Each structure stands twice: as structure tokens, then as C-alpha cells.
């Protein structure tokens, strides 16, 4: 789980071109949208692309996506829940 979260942070930074952000700047539980990193709805679509490209997980409904993409923690939990044990 820890390793997954680290990888995710790196992937988020790359996908969204967060130039001045380092993985350690992103708190696992901090909200990604609004307050936190200041991401918006287009970023949320970009993060869904990330999930599909890197983890083969397709999120169809943008509203469902918002719940999954709340934080690095929630993303990691979602990815784990989708992967075969």
C-alpha cells in the first residue's frame, strides 16, 4: 500500500504537470481538489485517464470518479480493491 501510494503520487505529478510539487508534499489524506492541490474537474478526468492507462481501471461516471479521487489514500484503496488478491 505504501509503495502504491508513492508511485501514485509520482504519477499524479507527471500526469498533471505539477512542476513545483514533490511526492512528499502530497499528504495521503489531504483532499486533491479545491483546497488541497487546487485541482479542478479537468484534472479529475486526467486522473481517470491515469487509472485507466496504468491500472486498467475504467471509471465511467465522473461523479463516481470524484469519490475515488478524493485523496491519494482513497485512490490507492480503490486500486487495491480492484486488483486480484
Amino acid at each position, binding site marked *: 500500500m505504501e509503495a502504491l501510494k508513492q508511485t501514485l503520487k509520482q504519477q499524479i505529478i507527471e500526469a498533471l504537470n505539477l512542476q513545483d510539487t514533490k511526492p512528499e508534499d502530497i499528504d495521503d489524506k489531504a483532499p486533491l481538489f479545491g483546497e488541497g492541490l487546487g485541482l479542478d*474537474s*479537468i484534472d479529475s478526468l486526467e486522473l481517470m485517464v491515469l487509472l485507466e492507462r496504468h491500472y486498467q481501471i475504467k471509471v*465511467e461516471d*465522473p*461523479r463516481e470518479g470524484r469519490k475515488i479521487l478524493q485523496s491519494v489514500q482513497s485512490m490507492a484503496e480503490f486500486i487495491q480493491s480492484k486488483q486480484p488478491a
Partner: protein
Amino acid sequence: MAERVLITGMGMITAIGETVTANLHSLTHQHSGLGFTRFIDTIYKEVLPVAEVKYSNEELARMAGVPGQPGYTRTSLLGLIAIQEALQQAGIRDMQQEPTGFINASTVGGMCDTEKVYFDIIDPEKEGDFLRYIDTLDCADCTQRIADRTGINGFVTTISTACSSSANALMYGARLIKQGLARRVICGGTEALTSFTINGFNSLKNIDKQACRPFDHNRNGLNLGEGAAYLVLESESLVKQHGSRVLAELSGYCNSNEAFHPTAPSPEGDGAYTAMKEALAMSGRSIDQVQYVNVHGTATWPNDLSEGRALERLFGSEVPPFSSTKPFTGHALAAAGAIEAIYSVLAIQHRLIFPNLNFAEKMEELSIVPETRLLEEQAVTTVISNSFGFGGNNASLVISKYEG
């Protein structure tokens, strides 16, 4: 006093008909144009419904009177068919009699044809006829093809403001007339389906896999469409001079911006509210004189919420019948504003209010529901037509019965 701007001719082709009359027939018989594409090469061929014009490019070229002539993209052919009907209806045979402008609208120009050969175009190893499509990549190509074929001899230009493009073209044409820079301008837009736009809207996750459901609680996105529509706008003095038949008046318009987000409207519908309010003020009509609103109603989750709130803010508890005709035509992007402006004229001419198909459940955020039946024998004298687009671009038109 500034000239009044009158509509003297209309022409169109959409998935529900290749003439204005054929469109009216489909609207009144509730025949939707949605189905699966025959002409686009995409993995979504049998997944995402579209409202495609039922003719191949070869058939369209024959209908447009340019059979076998190379270089006409589908965008140009659709436009050519629509403008020829508009000219005929307005009784314009000789362009030389009166300088005639052409304000066209397009979102992706000739992409429908260039996307098929783009990778050949950029490959130095490849040579061939496809090189002639290079100049059709931009939005001006279709405009000039149509202008040259029909002998347009006034202002020629193209507007691209995404889904509100042709509403803005109508507005610009009307302003050129009001300011005395032209007496006759043909305005509208043309749009052909492309893999580019299907994939684009799909990447935004706002295409419904079912037929779109505007203003429904369970709406899940739009369906793309294609087509072309043009309206002949003339100054009142030119109409009087020629004794032309007037179909309706373009009595008000407003373009306002959300200044909110690249692709989403503000939740309270600020831009839509302002556009409708200002357009109505310009037309000199009050809210109780509006009998019908042809809404933008794309059936995306944010649009319908925002537009619905704007309707409630403007009309309070007296929201007039409203419907989205996009379940008939799909969202024809640059052509949508002009298609729906023509439907607004038809509503006035034929005393009709068109149904909003596929509606089942009221949105919980709103107290209003769209009109789902075809209403006949309605005294429709003033209609608002909305077109909203990316970049927060909102355009509202007010179309009124011409009382002379």
C-alpha cells in the same frame, strides 16, 4: 433608428431531414435522427449513438450540385446543400443585385476528411491525391467553397466559439445590418461528424450511450450530431424595397461569458441568465410575452442544471414551455445554433411547440420540467433560442413574429 433585422430565407440539412420541410415533418412526427454511424471509422461505431445525415459524401455531392468534383469536404457539402435551399426560399437568384455577406460557423472545419489522411499528409514517404485536403484543414475552407459556389460578394468570414458558433454568426450578421455595413447577410453554420469530436467529447466523459435525455434526472450526457443550417437576414428597408416575404424577425440577441471554467458553466447559470435577459430586453419584449424557449439542453449533467436554474431565475414561477430538440438532431456543435433558430421560426410559423423527447423524471434541483408533447395551435410570437459553449460562451437569440 437602427434597421430591424428580418429573416427571409432558411435552409437546412440534419439527421432528421434534408430540407426545412423534412425537418418539420420529423419534428411533428417525433422521428429522432439518432442511430449509429455509417461513415465514421471509430471503435464506438456501435456504442455511442450519433445523429448522422443519412447520405454518403457521393450522394451529398449530387444533392449539392457538385457531383464528382474533388476537394469538397463533407462539411462543405452539407453547407452547400443548406445554403442553396435558403437562397431559393429567399428568392435570391442573382447575387449581383445586392452585395450579400456570408458569416459561417465551424468548429473543426474539414477535419471529417482530413483526419482520414492526416498520417499520410505528415509522412514524407507518401504521395497522392490526399495532398489536396491540406487546405481543408482549417475552418475557412468550407466557408470559401460555399461562398465561391454561390457567388457571395460581400463580407465573408467564419466564427468558431464551439457550440455557440452559429448563434454568434447570426448575431454578427445582424449587427452588420443594424450598423448599416450590409443589407443582406447569410448566417449559420456547418458541422460534420468526426472521430476527432466523438473522441473529444468522450474524453470529457459526457457522451451518453443511450439517446440523450435533456432535463431528466438520470441524464447522462449528449449525443453528437451533424448538419448545416443558414438563415438569410435582410434589413427591413431592403425587404420593403424588394417586397420580400418575411418569415420572422431576429429581434434580440446577447452574447455573455461565464468567466468560470474552460468547459463547465457556473452552477447558478449566470451566463445563461444574462444572455437571455439582455436578448429579451433588446427585443423590447417582456418575460410574459415569451411562449417558448428552445433550450440548449445538451443533456450533460452541468448544462441542464445551470440552464434550468437560469430559466427559473429569469421567469420565476412562470417559466414558459421549453424543450431541447437535441434528441432529434443530436448536438450539431457549430450548426446547432442555426438549426435551432430555424426551429424557432417554424414554431412561430406553424404555431407549434416541439416535444423534448426521452424525458421521464424531473430533476430534483429544479421545479420545472420540459414540454414532452407536441403542442399545436399555440399562439407563438416570441421564442428564445439558447446556445452555450466551451470557453463559457453563451448566446441567446430572440426570434419574433414580424408584425410589420
